[in-house]
């Protein structure tokens, strides 16, 4: 109580001045709070990108970063006979299909988490989050054990006296399946946040006015939930472009994806400058896409539901 007695007079002396002072202080406090993150990402994210950029212009098959300058690496990549274009189309195609399939798979679940599951929602969310904490290697390898000859599916079917399971492993199709499987949470959670933005009374009002379900979905629910759906689509697309584990473990390298090409350049062929040039192209592609999409979104509204 003693504190209470002492503190107020100082504030009463200049209430407006104090409020202004506090406002000015908040400005700088915000910037100061952002400083550690900014430093970390500046050193750990931006600097490596600069290094990659430097390497991309270095003499092929050398380690002369920042001392040599040549466009030879890009010339190699833009050569139309180079297989990286095939990899790039595989990656883009698979990523687009992943996004399309996941949008359909995740939508009913996101809707359910918002409106149907009620008190079970939290628990079901946890079940969808948990796989993120299991290395994707482990989960994808589990599918190998499921689909492999004499594996869980094949063995069970044979045990039942049937012909045995189909041979699906080591094909582009199973790679796509693996991607859909791995990136489900990244579509589901932004979509759930997006659907939470739809005011229910608006839907009720439309229904009272006689709008059909399809009409409500198309004219109210979908447009209002779009920010979340878009973030989910962007996130899954970008992650799927960079995915390698699915093509390696499930796909058995039946197709080479773009990040795998980058890895090959860095490891097997020991051509860091070429790998860097390719990484720079992928970075620009993803960066442009991400920045364009993010510039259209209001994150305060999405996360804070203000």
């Amino acid at each position, binding site marked *: 109580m003693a504190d*209470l007695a002492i*503190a*107020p007079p*100082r504030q009463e002396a200049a209430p407006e001045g104090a409020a202004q002072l506090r406002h000015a202080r*908040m*400005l700088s406090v*915000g*910037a100061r*709070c*952002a400083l*550690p*993150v900014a430093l*970390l*990402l500046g050193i*750990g994210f931006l600097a490596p*990108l600069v*290094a*990659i950029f430097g*390497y991309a212009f270095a003499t092929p098959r050398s380690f002369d970063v920042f001392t040599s300058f040549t466009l030879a690496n890009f010339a190699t990549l833009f050569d139309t006979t180079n297989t990286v274009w095939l990899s790039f189309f595989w990656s883009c195609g698979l990523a687009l299909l992943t996004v399309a399939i996941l949008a359909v798979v995740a939508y*009913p*679940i996101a809707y*359910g988490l918002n409106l*149907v599951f009620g008190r079970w929602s939290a628990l*079901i969310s946890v*079940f*969808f989050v948990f796989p*993120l*904490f299991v*290395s994707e*290697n*482990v989960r*994808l*390898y*589990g*599918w190998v*054990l*499921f689909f492999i000859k*004499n*594996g869980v599916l094949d*063995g*069970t079917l044979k*045990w039942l006296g049937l012909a045995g399971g189909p041979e699906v492993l080591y094909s582009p199709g199973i790679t796509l399946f693996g991607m859909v499987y791995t990136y489900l949470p990244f579509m589901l959670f932004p979509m759930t946040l997006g659907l939470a933005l739809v005011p229910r009374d608006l839907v009720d009002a439309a229904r009272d006015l006689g709008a059909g379900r399809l009409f409500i979905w198309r004219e109210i629910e979908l447009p209002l939930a779009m920010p979340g759906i878009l973030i989910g689509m962007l*996130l899954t697309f970008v*992650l799927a472009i*960079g*995915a*390698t584990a699915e093509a390696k*473990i499930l796909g058995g390298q039946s197709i080479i994806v773009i*990040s795998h090409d*980058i*890895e090959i350049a*860095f490891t097997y062929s020991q051509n860091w400058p070429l790998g860097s040039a390719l990484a720079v192209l992928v*970075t620009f592609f*993803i960066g442009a896409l991400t*920045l364009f999409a*993010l*510039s259209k979104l209001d994150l*305060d509204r999405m*996360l*804070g539901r203000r």
Partner: protein
Amino acid sequence: MGHKRTNAAIWTWTLFVLVAIYLPIVCGALASFNKSRYFGFPIKTYSTEWWQKTLDSIEIGMIVKTSISIALLVTVFSVVIATFGALAFARYEWKGRKLYQKLILLPIFFPQPVLGLAMLLGFNAVGIQTSWMTAVFAHMIWIVPVVTLVIAIQVYGFDPSLEEAAYDLGCSRTQVFREVTLPLLWPGIWSGMLFAFLLSWSNFPLSLYTTGADSTIPEWLYAKMVAGYTPMVPALGTMATLGAACLLLAGGLIGLLLRRRAAA
């Protein structure tokens, strides 16, 4: 009305997807109890032999220790940085905030294998030898933004007038932070800690390029999947999964208590 039928369909679909999500994890657990070296289903003889071998292996013991060390350090550093990051993200109005909110997301929207390689290049360019300690740093680049978002959601839900009241009562800034801000944010910080630890624990693409001669659990598993499969692979995989599940369960219960106390 078809309302009930739609709801039933949504339940069925969700449960079906959940079963599919956990199916491979169950397959791995089954394979780890298979006595013979090569997997075949239905399993002829079950045994815990491979679990025992995994537990007895000195090599695996070291790998587990590396994984835990990385995850612990990542958790401590990430949560401290991300707590301030989240305040800047959601609490304070400042000039660069909108831009900051977007830039901080970039590492999440970046393919991790490429990020890992870029960091390897960066370490190489400045002459740092990669080891498990460089992996701590690499993990943080991806985990700090995630944890910032997790904590930011808690920050959005908190009432700034509580802080202002404390200032009006003459508290210093450190006092306000310690006595008001921090206790109110605890549930979010706790979730952030769980995320940080578990995401680091399960990370493969960043570790692959930044651990140097050291190896983490996901790396070891991948190396053995590619060449040299034994049932120790699914055994260690299942152990890692169970470890994560126990931690999440314990952490979730503590988080629930924290939330209840924060609400009271």
